[in-house]
């Protein structure tokens, strides 16, 4: 958010009361007084999060029909269905802030809304289903576990529900990677290739480095977030390095090394130019994802119309005849 954006004048007394509630760890609920900036930040963050769940269905949906066996196909279908559910949980949370879901969906279709850039990368092989579950859902869990303690009640509650479900996503992905990594040399190479392509975009999922993250200070101050982007990224790396080693895959970072003192796995520089390029719409699949979303929305129009028509007919049948 540019610093020049005009901040609404808030009543200092109410603001102080609000911040005291945050400091006491109280949950902020939809009808409570809140600063306009808090509401705006939440709408921005929650709607982007909801859009990410929805767009996140596309890269994996691409492989449902080509899953290698029925067990994998059922798991992937269930996972993708969960992502739709997660999108709905968070849209429902966003609506408690007085925004209409229809408005948000429209912003996504218009291309004016943002969603997680990770979904603008292509899924080229079956191993990408493993890498996404393991890394992308793994990173999401690190982020969402923190958000489950967010100060805004409806957001926190949606996150609790989502975290419970996402562990299945991560494990099914890691199982795919484990199976491929212990398979033929070609299968292992396929797993390594997927890790090579998804590793850096997964680290970028945590957002810009703290010093370049314009929203972080405010989100931390109001306890929407409790950890900074860089802290969460480090936690994810620390968790994941051992998992890669355990299945004999190599993290594609020559600078990766363990720091005995901090007990952190220190990693090499992230290509932030690439990050901003994809955020601004020039990733490998930005256009394709939006086109697919619009097509699905348009092709689903008859379902929405039919449901409305059926409901109207039923209502007429139930209404006592005027005659």
């Amino acid at each position: 958010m540019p610093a020049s954006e005009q901040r609404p004048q808030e009543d200092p007394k109410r603001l102080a009361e609000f911040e005291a509630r945050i400091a006491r760890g109280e949950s902020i609920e939809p009808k409570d007084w809140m600063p306009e900036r808090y509401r705006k930040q939440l709408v921005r963050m929650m709607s982007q999060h909801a859009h990410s769940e929805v767009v996140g269905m596309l890269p994996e949906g691409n492989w449902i029909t080509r899953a290698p066996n029925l067990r994998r196909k059922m798991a992937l279908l269930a996972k993708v269905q969960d992502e739709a559910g997660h999108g709905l949980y968070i849209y429902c949370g966003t609506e408690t802030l007085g925004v209409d879901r229809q408005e948000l969906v429209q912003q996504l279709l218009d291309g004016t809304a943002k969603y997680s850039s990770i979904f603008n990368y292509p899924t080229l092989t079956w191993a990408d289903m493993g890498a996404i579950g393991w890394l992308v859902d793994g990173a999401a869990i690190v982020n969402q576990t923190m958000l489950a303690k967010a100060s805004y009640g409806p957001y926190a509650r949606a996150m609790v529900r989502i975290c419970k479900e996402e562990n299945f996503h991560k494990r099914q992905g890691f199982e795919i990677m484990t199976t491929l990594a212990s398979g033929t040399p070609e299968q292992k190479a396929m797993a390594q290739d997927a890790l090579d392509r998804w590793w850096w975009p997964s680290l970028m999922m945590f957002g810009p480095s703290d010093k370049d993250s314009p929203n972080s200070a405010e989100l931390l101050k109001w306890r929407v977030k409790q950890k900074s982007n860089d802290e969460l990224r480090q936690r994810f790396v620390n968790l994941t390095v051992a998992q890669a080693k355990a299945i004999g895959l190599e993290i594609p970072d020559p600078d990766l090394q363990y720091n005995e003192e901090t007990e952190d796995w220190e990693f090499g520089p992230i290509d932030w130019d690439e990050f901003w390029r994809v955020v601004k719409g020039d990733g490998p699949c930005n256009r394709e994802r939006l086109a697919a979303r619009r097509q699905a929305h348009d092709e689903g129009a008859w379902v929405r119309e039919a449901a409305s028509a059926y409901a109207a007919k039923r209502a007429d049948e139930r209404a006592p005849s005027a005659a």
Partner: protein
Amino acid sequence: MANDSRGNGASGDSQWPLWEVFTQPPNGAPHEHAGSVHAVDAEHALQNARDVYARRNEAVSIWVVPSSVITASTPEDMGPFFDPANDKPYRHPQFYKVPRGIRM
């Protein structure tokens, strides 16, 4: 006061009216608010609620209620509305002294 800040649009490419969803877990606990869904009518709301909030046998029963008919207390009233309870510590067991050494 009704949940009047929430969307309830029903026109054109509509997202349909909003329903609040309450689910009861199988262990005998009471129904609890799970979230909301948009739906054309009650039957549709129940089906959507099942698909969104009960994909893993979390519920043995679901209630759906149009969001617009819920009456709720408001944060502004919170003090005076709840204060009859404030000066009645004798409603809590800790108010009563028990001789040392006796387990209750």
